[in-house]
């Protein structure tokens, strides 16, 4: 039955019913009395068949309409699956199916290819085999775009590779430089610190030197005063020495006079002694003579005896005088020696004072030289102190700069780390993209 309808169009059945109707009418007009029910039955059959056929075609039309509605809504799954004949309407349904098949194929291809591109898969191209007209042109355009994208991505990937390499180098270099700067900054800081310490020490030393120099200057001044005083006193000493010398000379002269006087005393005493001895001898002779004279000479003997005693006394006095003279002479000799020694001492003292004076003169000159030098040294020390101030300030600045540099280097390190991280992250993102 189905195949019957598949093969014959309802039109055929309508035509058949019409023909049968016409035959029935013709027979009726011609008076041929074929049983009317036979003809009527045949016509009815034809009409029923035609109706069934029409209903089938109507079903197809409804199905195609429903399919087109779904298609309109973007549902590419819609098809009229059961088409069993080749009537115009059935052919229409097949054509409609084909239309959707092409649209469906294009959408599947385009979607798959673009999804692949989004996964960075470029070999999945839109298959254009069997793809007609505008679909083909659209597919070609998509494939051309994919080609271009693949090309660009390839170039970009190469560029990314180069970029990655270069940034890796830069980041690595930066890290090295940062480390070096950090080390240099630390060295500068340490050097500046050490310089500061040394400068402080130098400043202290220069201060000390200055105060020492001032002390020296003061001492030199005092020394100068002392030297003047000493010179003055030496002068006085020389004068006194001269006076003393003159006086010793005079004393010497007097001593010589004294010695001569003593000698004369000695001569006088010797004469007295001689007289006394002679007197004694005479008295002795007188005594002897008196004794010879006996009684008469008794008185004389007494006188002679008295004379002898006197002579003895005179001799003894002379001896005593001689003793005294000798003592005097010894004393004078000692005095003379002492005077000579004193004179020698005074001469030596005079000489010494002379050499002290000349030494003092030299000393004075040297002290003046020292004072001048000290003055110069003081000026230098002041200059040094000033310079040290400058050095200290400069060192302070250097230290500050070194600290800043160190901080900058640390910052640089942080930034370089961040840069490295950012570049890494950027490249990671980039790798995700292509």
């Amino acid at each position: 039955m189905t195949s019957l309808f598949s093969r014959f169009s309802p039109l055929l059945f309508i035509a058949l019913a019409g023909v049968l109707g016409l035959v029935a009418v013709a027979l009726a007009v011609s008076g041929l009395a074929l049983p009317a029910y036979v003809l009527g039955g045949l016509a009815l059959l034809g009409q029923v068949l035609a109706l069934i056929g029409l209903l089938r075609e109507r079903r197809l039309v409804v199905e195609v309409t429903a399919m087109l509605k779904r298609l309109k809504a973007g549902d590419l799954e819609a098809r009229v699956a059961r088409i069993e004949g080749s009537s115009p309407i059935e052919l229409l349904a097949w054509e409609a199916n084909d239309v959707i098949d092409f649209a469906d194929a294009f959408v599947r291809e385009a979607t798959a290819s673009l999804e692949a591109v989004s996964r960075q898969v470029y070999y999945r191209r839109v298959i254009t085999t069997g793809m007609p007209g505008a679909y083909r042109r659209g597919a070609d355009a998509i494939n051309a775009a994919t080609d271009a994208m693949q090309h660009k991505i390839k170039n970009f990937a190469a560029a990314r590779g180069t970029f990655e390499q270069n940034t890796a180098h830069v980041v690595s270099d930066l890290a090295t430089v940062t480390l070096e700067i950090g080390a240099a900054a630390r060295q500068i800081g340490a050097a500046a610190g050490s310089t500061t310490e040394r400068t402080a020490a130098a400043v202290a030393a220069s201060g000390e030197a200055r105060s020492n120099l001032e002390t020296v200057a003061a001492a030199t001044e005092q020394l100068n005063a002392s030297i003047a005083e000493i010179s003055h006193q030496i002068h006085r000493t020389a004068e006194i020495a001269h006076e003393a010398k003159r006086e010793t000379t005079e004393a010497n002269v007097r001593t010589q006079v004294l010695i001569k006087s003593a000698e004369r005393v000695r001569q006088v005493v010797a004469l007295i002694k001689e007289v006394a001895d002679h007197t004694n001898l005479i008295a002795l002779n007188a005594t002897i003579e008196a004794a010879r004279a006996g009684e008469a000479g008794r008185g004389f003997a007494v006188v002679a005896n008295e004379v002898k005693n006197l002579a003895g006394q005179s001799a003894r006095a002379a001896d005593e005088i001689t003793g005294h003279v000798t003592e005097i002479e010894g004393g004078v000799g000692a005095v003379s020696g002492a005077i000579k020694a004193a004179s020698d001492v005074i001469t030596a003292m005079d000489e010494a004072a002379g050499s002290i004076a000349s030494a003092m003169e030299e000393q004075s000159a040297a002290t003046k030289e020292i004072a001048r030098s000290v003055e110069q040294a003081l000026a230098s020390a002041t200059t040094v102190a000033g310079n040290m101030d400058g050095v200290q300030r400069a060192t302070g600045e250097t230290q500050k700069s070194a600290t800043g540099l160190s901080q900058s280097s640390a910052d640089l390190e942080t930034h370089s780390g961040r840069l490295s991280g950012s570049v890494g992250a950027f490249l990671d993102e980039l790798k995700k993209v292509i």
Partner: protein
Amino acid sequence: MTVDRSLTGRERFFESSDVIVTKTDLKGRITYANRTFLNIANLDVRHALNAPHSLIRHPDMPRCVFWLLWETIQAGKEIFAYVLNRAVNGDHYWVFAHVTPSFGEQGEIIGYHSNRRVPRREPIDTVIKPIYAELLAVENSHANRKDGMHAAVVALTEKLKSAKVSYDEFIFSI
């Protein structure tokens, strides 16, 4: 009912402007077939609709290819394959099949869709036929069909791995 697997050795061809289109439900039963399919498979609509797609399976096709095909499309992905099919009269024809899942409004798989185009001849003769023969031999070397198929899947996987390409890359490279 025994499946008729007799072969005539005659190859059928279709126009390169044509595309063989079928749709199946989730179980692989045909829900739509276009005229090109019906013509080349020598089927009428009534026999095609609701029939399993394996209706046109050719005995020279390794089963592992279909296993891979189903694994892929059930995972929601598309697959391309060179396939030798058998028309119901025993003739055979080669296609370049593209099988894709059809998705519903919620993204769920509601069926499968296959577009088959005229294949390039050269890769079939130089690459596909030898590989399929090899895989088929692996499958037939096992008493158990399932074991044989798994062995063939392993063989195919190893082949791709040693060539360092994915199945897709391989198909598009030939």
